[in-house]
């Protein structure tokens, strides 16, 4: 594509390998992008379930999930709307620990993450294992606010952030990949920011 008349880079070049293609550093702000009404969720009634193709369908209450080993993610996040945010710190538990408790069956190779709002997003199981995904309730050491998915959201920071379902309530293991909410609505099935897999039609 030809250059745009009169347009020049304003931002200094980022350190190599830090900013995926087409992204910019949003700095200190954290934009809120949500497709549905933001819910008010009561932690006393909150649960998270891992079920579907697993040996032991398991549900955690708020008290129970905090008994699991605490895990932290420190790093960057990338939104499909082109902002990236560097050096965020989330606290919660590793999805590996949740899956270990539930015991995925061999044919359960895909996951649908469900939120209490009805939002869904699909992921290959391989994107949720090996220390790449968390269920989190702290941001910067403080409780995660509801507009950012609190009390508890999924965190899959190596994929575009719509995969990190806000208000997550269920991880359902499936044999076949099925499109979730944004994936049915024109967005890419995998969403790797380094390959710029934003929309259907991207390779």
């Amino acid at each position, binding site marked *: 594509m030809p250059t745009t008349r009169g*347009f*020049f880079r304003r931002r200094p070049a980022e350190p190599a390998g830090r900013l995926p*293609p087409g992204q910019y550093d949003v700095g200190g702000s954290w*934009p809120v992008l949500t*497709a549905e009404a933001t819910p008010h969720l009561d932690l006393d009634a909150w649960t998270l379930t891992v079920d579907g193709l697993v040996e032991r369908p398991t549900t955690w209450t708020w008290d129970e999930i905090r008994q699991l080993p605490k895990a932290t993610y420190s790093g960057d996040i990338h939104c499909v709307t082109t902002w990236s945010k560097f050096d965020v710190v989330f606290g919660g538990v590793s999805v590996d620990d949740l899956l270990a408790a539930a015991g995925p069956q061999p044919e359960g190779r895909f996951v649908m993450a469900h939120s209490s709002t*009805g939002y869904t997003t699909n992921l290959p199981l391989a994107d949720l294992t090996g220390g790449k995904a968390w269920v989190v309730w702290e941001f910067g050491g403080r409780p995660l606010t509801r*507009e950012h998915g609190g009390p508890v959201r999924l965190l899959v920071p190596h994929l575009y952030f719509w995969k990190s379902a806000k208000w997550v309530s269920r991880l359902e293991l499936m044999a076949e990949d099925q499109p979730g909410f944004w994936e049915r609505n024109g967005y890419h099935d995998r969403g790797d920011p380094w390959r710029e897999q934003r929309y259907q039609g991207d390779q």
Partner: protein
Amino acid sequence: MSTDGSIDAVKATATAWTTGRIITKDLPTPDLVRLRMHVEDRARHRPGQHYLIRLRAPDDYTAQRSYSLASDDSDPLVEFLVERLPNGEVSEFLADVADVGDVLEVRGPIGRWFTWDTRTPALCLVGGTGVVPAVAMSRAARRVGRMDLLRVVAVGRTPEELPYADELGHAGATITYTRQAVADRPAGPPTASEVAPLLAGVELAYVCGSSRFAQFAETLLIDCGMSPQSIRVEQFGATG
């Protein structure tokens, strides 16, 4: 542009980058720019969908942002209304540098959630430049002769600052200003007594505006009896 006016003829398709030429440009206010563009190999769109606009520097640095369409599918051009944000590298370029005849990289239409099917009774509660998708929905309603199905409540600070206020007003929208009394209406956001009567028979609500506006609008709609599951939200913030 379209030959078949029915919404079902507008199919969801994968999109690719193409180019668009700016045919007209005007600034309705110093901080709002309206661009009308001719898009090569344009696909049909549903009201509420958006496009990406991508700018490319000589060193191949690119910046892209999403902008909702104000135009109807039947319009030979696509129309964007963009707010100039402080330090917004794309919005400032579009407002201050881009000119008629310039060719920009564009991609769309994108998004199938925040769209109206022109058949479902719906209400738009929109604020500031969040009126843009409601303008597209209103134009589609007019084209298919079903303006009875779409109710619009548009919220601005003052009449000078609210884009498309005249067009929406002529289409029957309820216009409210938070900072200025107009006619008999005192300054202030829309109230439950203004919105609740408009919800009779409404099955879907579309909320578009800043994050702060969206929080206000969701609360108001739920207070008026709307189910949270029937509210679709499009928010924008510091993504300039």
